[in-house]
């Protein structure tokens, strides 16, 4: 082949390739990744509803920031909502309004997270606004339509609009942050004049009137008693209240009962009713005193407690006039007067095998044994008892028998059997105790000893007690007094069997509520047998530690 032929061949191929290339169509590539608008873009697109709020964003120089990448939630007020607000502050238009107020307002309408209506509960949103205060949400039923309400100021007209950099909820009114402190709000309400005067005289007014720049210290919650509530308890005036409580004559004194009364009505932290009911008790500013809270028939009740089988009626927090936001917290309304209760420490004889889950099984409770299996890490078969998950086979047994030697002398003929220690068994087990009144207690662990059981540390509220309990160890011989001196006692009627109680130590219970008690196996410490626990006694240090004793039929004996 000569050169010419090569040229021809090449040109032929070139010709062909031209034809192919010409035959191909050019692809129309899209250069942007999405057509979604951002928050500012959405407001622009819907100018007939949001032109005024857009103007506010422009004037406060937030438009560009809300058009950039991020994840925000905006409560966007419609034009009519903005107009109403402008009228309320006496401004003719957006330009006429105070710039600093507008800046605060814009921040109050923004959250630095995406929050859909799915997260709206009876109470505050999980994240604060950029302004710093929390927004509360709820659902309002009005003229046959339910809508989400925001801060009790606006209703959501269109929810969960997804835009490029977050979520928009359209609302019909502007949201206005609280401008007064808790103290000022209460002072401005004549229904609380007695309470406010007590607040002033005890020195708490100043505390409740400051907005701490440090947000970790800023928030407080006050449970206020109206004049009516106080009058119902016989305190028609501040003088009457002072006469009753102020025994030292100086309410500023922390040991004065009026001071304590006020401190007992203030909780640290911001707690809306939705937060209050998620926890059974809350610390107050009165050292070591808690209020207990629970939901009864959908109402929030404070301090309704069962002590020594006597039910003490609680006090209702009225929903519709509670949850009042202020610049430094929230305050609620209590319909009746309540005060710290000083209780004498009382013994708690706690039967570990009487927990709700087993008592709900009539075929098993006090009839036959039952195994509680924790299927996986997330599973919690028993609400008040938790243990380290080491596999579903590592279980928790309820044992009952009137004849078997594991239970024949146990209180109610039942015990719990737990396996602890070693590489394959739980290293710890944690119990929630019944309510224990604050005070100093000796803690006795009552068990049935068995060779091969493990030695555990007893930890109450994170505090390690003085003596470890060896579940394999039996009670030595000696008189009751001799035994008590070395930390043993007989808690059953039976005198010879392997059932015994061991003193784990003395503990200071600081608050009157339910506490955590934990068995921990110190590093490894394998065991071959289960551990059989019957009861735990919390007995005030000054009380008789030996009596009562407990019989199999569930009765107590005092000899």
């Amino acid at each position, binding site marked *: 082949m000569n050169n010419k032929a090569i040229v021809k061949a090449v040109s032929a191929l070139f010709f*062909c390739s031209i034809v192919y290339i010409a035959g191909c169509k050019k692809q129309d590539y899209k250069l942007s990744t999405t057509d979604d608008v951002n928050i500012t873009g959405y407001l622009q697109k819907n100018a007939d509803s949001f032109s005024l709020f857009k103007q506010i964003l422009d004037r406060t120089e937030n438009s560009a920031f809300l058009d950039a990448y991020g994840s925000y939630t905006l409560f966007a007020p419609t034009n009519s909502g903005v107009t109403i607000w402008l009228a309320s502050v006496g401004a003719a238009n957006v330009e006429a309004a105070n710039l600093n107020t507008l800046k605060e307002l814009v921040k109050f309408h923004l959250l630095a997270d995406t929050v859909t209506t799915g997260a709206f*509960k009876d109470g505050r949103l999980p994240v604060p606004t950029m302004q710093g205060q929390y927004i509360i949400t709820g659902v309002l*039923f009005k003229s046959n339509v339910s809508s989400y309400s925001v801060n009790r100021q606006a209703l959501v007209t269109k929810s969960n609009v997804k835009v490029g950099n977050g979520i928009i909820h359209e609302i019909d009114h502007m949201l206005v942050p609280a401008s007064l402190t808790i103290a000022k709000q209460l002072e401005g309400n004549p229904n609380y004049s007695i309470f406010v005067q007590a607040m002033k005289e005890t020195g708490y007014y100043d505390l409740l009137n400051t907005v701490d720049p440090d947000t970790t210290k800023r928030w407080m919650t006050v449970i206020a008693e109206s004049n009516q509530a106080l009058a119902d308890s016989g305190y028609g005036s501040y003088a009457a209240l002072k006469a009753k409580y102020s025994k030292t004559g100086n309410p500023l004194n922390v040991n004065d009962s009026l001071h304590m009364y006020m401190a007992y009505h203030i909780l640290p932290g911001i707690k809306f009713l939705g937060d209050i009911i998620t926890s059974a008790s809350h610390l107050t500013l009165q050292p070591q005193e808690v209020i207990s809270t629970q939901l009864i028939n*959908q109402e929030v009740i404070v301090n309704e407690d069962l002590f020594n089988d006597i039910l003490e009626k609680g006090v209702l927090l009225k929903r519709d006039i509670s949850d009042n936001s202020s610049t430094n917290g929230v305050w609620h309304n209590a319909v009746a007067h309540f005060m710290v209760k000083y209780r004498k420490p009382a013994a708690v004889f706690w039967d570990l095998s009487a927990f709700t889950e087993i008592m709900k099984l009539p075929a098993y409770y006090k009839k036959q044994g*039952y195994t509680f299996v924790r299927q996986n890490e*997330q599973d919690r078969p028993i609400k008040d008892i938790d243990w380290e998950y080491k596999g579903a086979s590592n279980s928790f047994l309820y044992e009952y028998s009137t004849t078997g030697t594991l239970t024949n002398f146990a209180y109610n003929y039942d015990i719990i059997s737990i396996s602890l220690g070693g590489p394959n068994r739980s290293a710890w087990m944690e119990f929630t105790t019944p309510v224990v009144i604050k005070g100093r207690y000796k803690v006795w662990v009552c068990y049935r000893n068995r060779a091969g059981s493990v030695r555990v540390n007893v930890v109450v509220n994170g505090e390690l007690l003085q003596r470890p309990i060896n579940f394999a160890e039996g009670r030595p011989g000696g008189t009751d007094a001799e035994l008590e001196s070395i930390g043993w006692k007989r808690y059953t009627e039976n005198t010879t069997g392997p059932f015994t109680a061991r003193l784990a130590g003395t503990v200071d219970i600081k608050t009157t509520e339910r506490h955590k008690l934990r068995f921990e196996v110190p590093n490894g410490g394998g065991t071959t047998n289960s551990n059989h626990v019957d009861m735990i006694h919390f007995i005030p240090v000054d009380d008789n530690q030996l009596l009562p004793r407990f019989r199999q039929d569930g009765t107590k004996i005092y000899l």
Partner: protein
Amino acid sequence: MKKLFFIIVTIGLLVGFLSCTKWIELKPQDGIVREEFWKTKEQVEAAVTGIYASMLGGTLPDYLFVWGEARADMVTPGFRATQDELDMVNLNMLATNSFTNWRPFYQTINYCNTVIELAPPVLQNDNTFSQAQLDRATGEALTIRALLYFYLVRSFGDVPLKLNATVSDQDIIPLPKSGRDSILNQIVADLKKAEPSLPLSYGNVNFDKGRVTRYTVNALLADVYLWMEKYNETVTECNKIINSGNFGLISGPNFFNEVFYEGNSNESIFELQFDVQKLNPYYFMHTPGNRRWGAANYLTEDVYGIDAVNTIPIVDWRGDKTSYRGTDFTIWKYVGADNNGTTLRSLEQSFAHWIFYRYADVLLMKAEAINQLDQPLEASRIVKTIRQRASALDFTAMDSTSKPGMTTFILEERQREFAFEGKRWYDVLRNAKRNNYAGLQILLNVASVSIPSDRQQAAFNKLRDKNSHYFPIYFYEIQTNKLLEQNPFYK
């Protein structure tokens, strides 16, 4: 040389064009097209079977459970429950919740429509295909379509009413919603049309319970009439089943085994028949290790009752160890293998049937209807037969003299009888919406049991708006069908 140039150009172009234009075979090589199908009666039969098969697959059986139970008070979400399920429990429905995707329902509806539209021409092609056989095939399709529309109308309120088949891309047209009343009327008309053409029996117990019979139509019609508050018609339909004498109640000790474990019992009217080849999805919903749903833990005490009086305690056969296992609150009906609460079905044995209707349902529907017709005493007698079979514990008094008292009691009895059978929410809603929502409080009571305490007030106020009782339309449907309008509560 010229020749070489010519050859290369020709070959080059040929190769080039061949590579671009592929020879198009219009008929699929691995399937059958419509023009070749719909020729014989066997093919019609296959298409009808396909309708039933489509209900077993996909997410439909999952939905039947979740739609009927999640928003009510019988279940609690387990550790594997999805966020969408938790939102549903908390009545926080959004249009993005995947459980509002009605696709599996409309898919089966389309299979029904296809049979209704394309089966009649087969008469011309197959001489052995009789008019009676055709009527039966369309009757089955009409009934299933009515059943699914009944689910949709109870769950969404207004939905698009698609009555013709979508067989090609040209048939895909946007369709607006139809009013719930017109859909209910269509359901009634379809069922009335199907009723005479369906057999009372196929001569085989598996077919009688797994395919729709005339009794299925009667039971479904009774349910539809009850929803429409047409009580005389409900009684008529129930009586057709009761008077046939073909059904009975299984006695207590055999109740779990015959009705739920084996399935196709004498009590059953229509069920979805899962089997070894087609397992149900319930293993991965209810077994303790995979729990998406568990039983609510107040059932033992407050729903079935605990007998503390008798030395040998009276135990309701329908409660612990039948509907659920009281020790760990596993929903037992679908995953249990015995009625002493010890053995679970293994995964390959997980084919408990889904029961749409059974005889007890018919009896209680009749009781509900005649009670509304001011015959509480008659109603109480029917309720008593149900209770006697179950050896129910009398821990709440039945007041057979008062109509409102019996209304409440029948609802409670249905709760005990049909626990976890996907009926609770619809039962509660039906009783709540009766007489222009005179019973709204029932819904609030249910919510007070099932909703977490920090969300209750919001839930109550949502429930007061009756539009919130129906699902939103799934966002994807709104995007693709411009004629659809989102349901009022969710705008």
